[in-house]
């Protein structure tokens, strides 16, 4: 069944997860991502070897995922901003114990309970770890239905390859919107690489231990450096970004997810009136695609970061550029989604204020 299907973003993640071999899902309801939990309930029931649990809390759900990952399953949990905060302890444990798992955050307006509108306020939490301790989480930011399908597959592969938690960072709009999607063929679970570290009964072999309590400081230090070497490998291997009309651009907008789509609409308008504006859309938020950014700074003097927040990714852009180009910011927090018209006015003003039409 490789037909194009019109599907809601949350359902796309669910179907793509099942096709990626996800056989364990635990979650606790929260808007605007309940459709994913709903989808997994149905999908896991249809599978012979699928397990779906509506847990008693977000904490319980993420800890169930820890257990499933230890036992070798491709496991997933999902929530929205306030619920993801609750899962952070578990994500820290996943990272510490080098367990693969996929966590979906369908961001909503915050802080606190906030609202249920699309937002990007959880960038810091997602990319800086979120939980306690010295660790990183791979963070992927899809911007369309098709990309949700492709990225969900990748998320499970990255999680297994690097034995680390992977977060898919979407928002209420990505989750609710329907777009045509073509899914990859389902993976054959038997063909996945073996996991020689899982806890599946020690009969006939020495026991294995998976733990994060390392009281001996030198052992813990070794473990931290081991994680760092892994993170450096990830940083070399997976950064990804989409470039749109950047080759001759004098101003490049940097935006991810829903914000990037709004930005593209605005950039199209600017191009129509002759302004040389392009888009850089990070697809991996951690690791951040620094190399692409630096490369672009050779001809782009001005970057405008647009986020549905008060400014979080803008710090990574500044860090990545290390002063090579000027960084400007425009953001709308609290669940407000700008229109392309609104953003094109911002771009237009900046373009002329910096006298970029004269160059």
């Amino acid at each position, binding site marked *: 069944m490789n037909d*194009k299907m*019109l599907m809601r973003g949350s359902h796309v993640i669910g179907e793509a997860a099942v096709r990626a071999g996800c056989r364990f899902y635990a979650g606790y309801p929260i*808007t*605007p991502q309940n459709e994913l939990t709903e989808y997994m309930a149905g999908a896991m029931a249809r599978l012979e070897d699928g397990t779906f649990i509506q847990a008693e809390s977000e904490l319980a759900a993420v800890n169930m995922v820890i257990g499933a990952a230890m036992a070798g399953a491709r496991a997933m949990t999902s929530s929205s901003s306030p619920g993801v905060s609750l899962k952070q302890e578990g994500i820290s444990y996943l990272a510490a114990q080098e367990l693969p798992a996929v966590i979906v955050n369908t961001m909503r307006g915050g802080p606190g309970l906030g609202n*249920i*509108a699309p937002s990007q306020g959880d960038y810091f939490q997602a990319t800086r770890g979120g939980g306690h301790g010295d660790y990183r989480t791979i963070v992927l930011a899809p911007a369309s239905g098709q990309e949700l399908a492709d990225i969900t597959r990748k998320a499970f592969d990255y999680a297994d390859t690097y034995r680390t938690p992977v977060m898919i960072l979407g928002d*209420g*709009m990505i989750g*609710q*919107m*329907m*777009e*045509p999607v073509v899914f990859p063929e389902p993976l054959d679970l038997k063909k996945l690489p073996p996991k020689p570290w899982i806890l599946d009964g020690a009969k006939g072999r020495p026991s294995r231990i998976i733990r994060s309590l390392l009281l001996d400081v030198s052992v813990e230090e070794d473990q931290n450096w081991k994680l760092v070497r892994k993170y450096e490998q990830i940083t070399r291997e997976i950064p990804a970004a989409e470039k749109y009309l950047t080759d001759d651009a004098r101003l490049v907008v940097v935006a991810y997810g829903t914000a990037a*789509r*709004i930005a*593209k*609409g605005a950039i*199209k308008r600017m191009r129509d009136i002759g302004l040389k504006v392009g888009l850089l859309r990070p697809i991996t938020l951690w690791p951040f695609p620094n190399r692409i950014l630096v490369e672009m700074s050779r001809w782009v003097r001005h970057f405008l970061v647009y986020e549905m927040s008060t400014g979080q990714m803008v710090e990574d852009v500044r860090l990545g550029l290390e002063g090579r180009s000027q960084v400007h910011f425009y953001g709308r927090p609290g669940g407000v*989604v700008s*229109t*392309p*018209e609104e953003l094109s006015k911002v771009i237009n003003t900046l373009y002329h204020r910096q006298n970029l039409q004269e160059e």
Partner: protein
Amino acid sequence: MTKKTIFAGFGGQGVLMMGYVLAVSAMRDGKNVTYLPSYGAEVRGGTANCTVVVSDEEIFSPVASSPEYAVIMNKPSLARYESMIKEGGVIVLNSSLIETNPSRTDLTVLRVPANDMAKELGSDRTINMIMLGAFVQQTGITTLDSIMNGLGEIVKGKKPAVMELNRKGLDKGAEFVLRGASQ
């Protein structure tokens, strides 16, 4: 060509279904589409709306800040969306529930007495399909055949009577526009 349409009305009037049928049909025509439902703490009898974008090109924003078309099912929705519609756009009104006319003079206004027409068909459940049939016939955003196919795909597995009733609604809406055009 990119066309944005907003469908709006009371929850329960089949507003989301109209948009969904259009989106599936246009996708099968080979177009790019996005379908964005309103979501929130909304209940039956509250307001509901969805935005469908149909395009030959990549669709950027799924939000219709200034849609070319609007299908308006009730009075509060007219008040809310009238000012947003693009200059020279088309507005299809359910005139059974909306006596007033838009105050804007640059819009093409099509008044469809959908509730009354549905009574003639013997089922309130055809109101949305009557509106959709009229909308498609008026704008040519896709063909009635495509809509029928899209609908067939969506209601697949349901009772044949359901499909038949919906089909009648679509036809009736389209005929209403054709008759008006020939007059």
